[in-house]
């Protein structure tokens, strides 16, 4: 038996290792993803003031600091039992829409996009941003860079900083939006919608127009019939910032709909000895191992899950795209993992439209940005939809607001079990008879990248943080250890 190890997986946040085990015929008989790092972030939080958490947690991850900042801020609202003012909620959602748009665009063009835009079987050296530029042209690449820069500068203006924002406070936000800024936001909103529609066109022209790409999306190799989870508004439409958590069955029926505060009644975590990632599952269904189907509580989050659990999108252009995707892919729910890329593009349209709507909201420049908290803190739970899926922050404090216990449940954790299914299934389909060329190994990685997993978040560690070790087994015996220390 021969083991193949793909490590580190590229264009992912953090550090993962895929082990592919071959049988005597050279076929894959088992593949799994290992996350070997653990930082114990929750332990670090103990003894710290809860008010510091929006700043501290935004430093866990270099990719989604705003998501942690916002989930943490909402946990503080709950902790102090203070409802933010209307305009504060709108400003938060505005800032959050800008963040989601930028983050998704980076994934489409830089992280996951190369798999499709450059081509899944293209040489690895070409499947990167430079390959994307060569394919889409310099003008398009400059437009992406320009839009990204505009969005980052806008959030720097609104949220204080792009990477470690300081806008969220319990009960509100730290600054109002001036009327001159509103005019600028309206202009940026229009530009963002144009950019989003342009991205949708790029995706359609380059990806959806190619039968082999659409076939890859719909391939059984990348298909798992699991439960799905995501936030929805009062009309069961996608919402990134607020709402109830909705779960649907693999057949598309509503299984549960609950407030973030009740997440412990709905979710439990399974532990495996070979990874630090815990595997959340639906408590009422139970854990039946790494299999899909209605009898197992494995669920998925991320863009496709959000669209699957929702009855629609809250903005018109995104709704059109939503309907088109489900029509092409055979109705809701869609179980094809690679459809996450399409769903992500649809969410770019939604984020841009929502940004434009909020910029044009007559209340957005209202100066009443905060209600001051006065209650004694105890337990605070906040939820948002991070780019990669549902993100929950849970703090318990003493009556001075000093944290006694913290729990962060992040998107990549929710997806961990399904990711394990994806890695194993893709490897079984594409690694056969000892053929393990780069294109095939990339197909395994593609399954992973579709979720846009963030191991830094999932293990609450920071990217690029550790040297890694490869263990090679034959017939259950460790025959070699390869350690990559710093060069």
């Amino acid at each position, binding site marked *: 038996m021969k083991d193949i190890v793909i490590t580190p997986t590229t264009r992912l946040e953090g550090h993962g290792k895929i082990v592919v085990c071959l049988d005597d015929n050279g076929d894959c008989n088992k593949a799994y993803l290992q996350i070997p790092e653990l930082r114990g972030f929750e332990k670090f939080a103990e003894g710290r003031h809860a008010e510091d958490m929006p700043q501290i947690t935004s*430093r866990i991850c*270099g990719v989604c600091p705003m998501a942690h900042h916002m989930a943490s801020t909402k946990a503080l609202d709950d902790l102090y039992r203070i409802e933010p003012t209307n305009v504060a909620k709108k400003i938060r959602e505005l800032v959050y829409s800008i963040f989601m748009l930028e983050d998704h665009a980076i994934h489409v063009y830089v992280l996951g996009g190369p798999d499709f835009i450059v081509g899944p079987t293209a040489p690895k050296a070409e499947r990167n941003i*430079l390959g994307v530029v060569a394919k889409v042209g310099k003008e398009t*690449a400059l437009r992406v860079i320009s839009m990204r820069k505009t969005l980052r500068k806008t959030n720097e203006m609104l949220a204080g900083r792009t990477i470690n924002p300081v806008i969220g406070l319990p009960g509100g936000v730290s600054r109002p939006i001036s009327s001159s800024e509103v005019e600028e936001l309206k202009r940026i909103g229009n530009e963002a919608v144009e950019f989003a529609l342009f991205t949708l066109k790029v995706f359609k022209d380059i990806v959806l127009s190619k039968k082999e790409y659409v076939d890859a999306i719909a391939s059984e190799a990348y298909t798992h019939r699991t439960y799905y989870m995501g936030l929805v508004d009062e009309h069961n439409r996608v919402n990134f910032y607020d709402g109830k958590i909705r779960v649907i069955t693999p057949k598309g029926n509503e299984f549960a709909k609950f407030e973030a505060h009740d997440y412990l009644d709905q979710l439990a975590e399974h532990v495996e000895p070979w990874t630090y990632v815990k595997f959340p599952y639906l408590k009422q269904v139970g854990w039946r191992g790494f299999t899909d189907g209605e009898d197992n509580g494995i669920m998925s989050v991320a863009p496709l899950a959000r669209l699957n659990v929702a009855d629609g999108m809250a903005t018109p252009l995104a709704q059109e795209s939503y309907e088109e995707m489900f029509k092409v892919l055979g109705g809701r729910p869609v179980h094809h993992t690679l459809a996450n890329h399409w769903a992500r593009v649809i969410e770019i349209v939604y984020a841009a439209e929502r940004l434009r709507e909020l910029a044009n909201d007559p209340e957005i420049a209202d100066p009443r940005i905060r209600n001051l908290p006065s209650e004694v803190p105890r337990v605070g739970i906040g939820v948002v939809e991070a780019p990669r899926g549902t993100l929950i922050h849970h703090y318990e404090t003493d009556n001075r607001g000093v944290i006694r216990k913290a729990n962060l449940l992040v998107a990549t954790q929710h997806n961990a079990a399904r990711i394990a299914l994806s890695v194993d299934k893709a490897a079984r389909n594409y690694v056969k008879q000892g053929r393990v060329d780069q294109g095939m190994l990339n197909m395994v990685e593609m399954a992973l990248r579709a979720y846009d997993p963030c191991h830094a978040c999932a293990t609450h560690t920071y990217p690029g943080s550790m040297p890694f070790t490869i263990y090679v087994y034959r017939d259950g015996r460790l025959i070699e250890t390869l350690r990559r220390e*710093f*060069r």
Partner: protein
Amino acid sequence: MTNPLILFLGNRILADDRIGLNIGEMLKGTLEAEGRDVEIIEESGFSLIDYLEGRENVTIVDSVRTGLHEVGEVVILGHDDFQRLSPFASHYGGIPEALALMRQLDLQVPSTLRLIGIEVEEPYVVSTKMCDKLEMEVTRIADEIHTAVSGQSAASSRYSPDRNFGVSPG
């Protein structure tokens, strides 16, 4: 002609990784008075394009853990080190790719780009405290960084400060 830019990188909750930020805060006033622009940031990779674009002379100050130097040693790193050292400090990982992208898009890249590393002990553990050695020697390290940035080589290095990356525009 733009002022030389000094970028201080780090993460405030990752133990020794905050050294770049601390040094930046110590030197910011002095360096700005000397006609340099200073940015103290917790960003990395492609985000650094926003800081590099349109600049002629950029110096990056960051923690590194090479195992080749004493903790606290200031190291002027050369062109060959740049690619090799990406695993040592996440903040400038991706810069070679970012520069390649900038060239491909005809964006102005710095004609002079260099990295000053500070050898550290533990840059990956979640902690707001640096190791004792760095805490004790932070003033000496700041002085050496200042000297190195000013072009007078006091840092222990395998490369002289004027042997920078030599990145050509376009």
